[in-house]
């Protein structure tokens, strides 16, 4: 298995689990505006912190493993990574647009003229997570095909 594949599996496991856990926690509390309750805000930051830590550890393991095994990245790996990036970009942008739209509607419905700064963090985070997931899923599918 190439380092890109290992990293992609790691990304799918870490960020896929993160999204599922976050969705369950938010659904259980009946809101997506996590910053409105202290307990929910703490839960959100704990889940995000654990996911980021797991991501860093996973990256380190893959990097150390690849360095020890002296794995070289060939033309096919580059091609797959470039295609994965090209595909993940528009998907992440769509996720950004949808998140902004949904949260914007929530605020407009509530007749608010101000929003929380956490909103921006939320939108950025969604963009990053969706990008990594889309990139990882495409990479795994591409390696299976080739």
């Amino acid at each position, binding site marked *: 298995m190439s380092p890109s594949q290992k990293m992609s599996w790691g990304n799918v496991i870490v960020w896929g689990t993160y999204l599922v856990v976050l969705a369950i926690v938010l659904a259980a509390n009946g809101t997506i505006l996590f910053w409105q309750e202290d307990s929910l805000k703490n839960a959100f930051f704990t889940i995000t912190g654990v996911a980021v830590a797991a991501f860093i550890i996973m990256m380190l393991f893959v990097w150390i493993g690849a360095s020890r095994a002296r794995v070289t990245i060939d033309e096919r790996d580059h091609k797959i990574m*470039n295609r994965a990036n090209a595909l993940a*970009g528009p998907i992440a*942008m769509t996720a*950004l647009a949808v998140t902004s739209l949904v949260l914007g509607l929530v*605020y407009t419905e509530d007749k608010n003229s*101000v*929003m929380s*700064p956490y909103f921006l963090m939320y*939108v950025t985070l969604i*963009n990053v997570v969706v990008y990594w997931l889309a990139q990882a899923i495409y990479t795994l599918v591409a390696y299976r095909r080739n």
Partner: protein
Amino acid sequence: MAPLQKRALYSFVIGLVLTIVLIVVLVAQGDITAFERDLKLRLVMYAVLIGVPLIYLILVNLTLRKPTQLDERDRRIIERSSWAQWLAVIFTLVAWTIALTEIYRDQGQVPIAFLKLIFMSTLIIGTLAQSLGILVGYWEMNRNG
């Protein structure tokens, strides 16, 4: 100059001029959220928002459809430039988050007008970064041979 490189350069320059015009207009108004009250200003913003991606789409995507105009190297450069686009979008979002959090730290709330501005800026900067990514791709390829 390759056809794709030339078109990316035109797209980048025109996009940059439109973006500078928009920034100048917003700064001249004295209040960055003035577009919420002024229809003319909103129209300028929408024109730039639609104009920048449209110019890129016409110059880079629609007029370069013939297989003879693009080779494997060009396609690889386009694919690699997506990475630059995403990075530009992320850095734009992070910059907005830090700037607005710091400016509105005391109030604890940010005017909702910024939501529109953030979304528009990410679209415009994303498109500009894609053109710039293509230009950098050619520059790197020429430098490395």
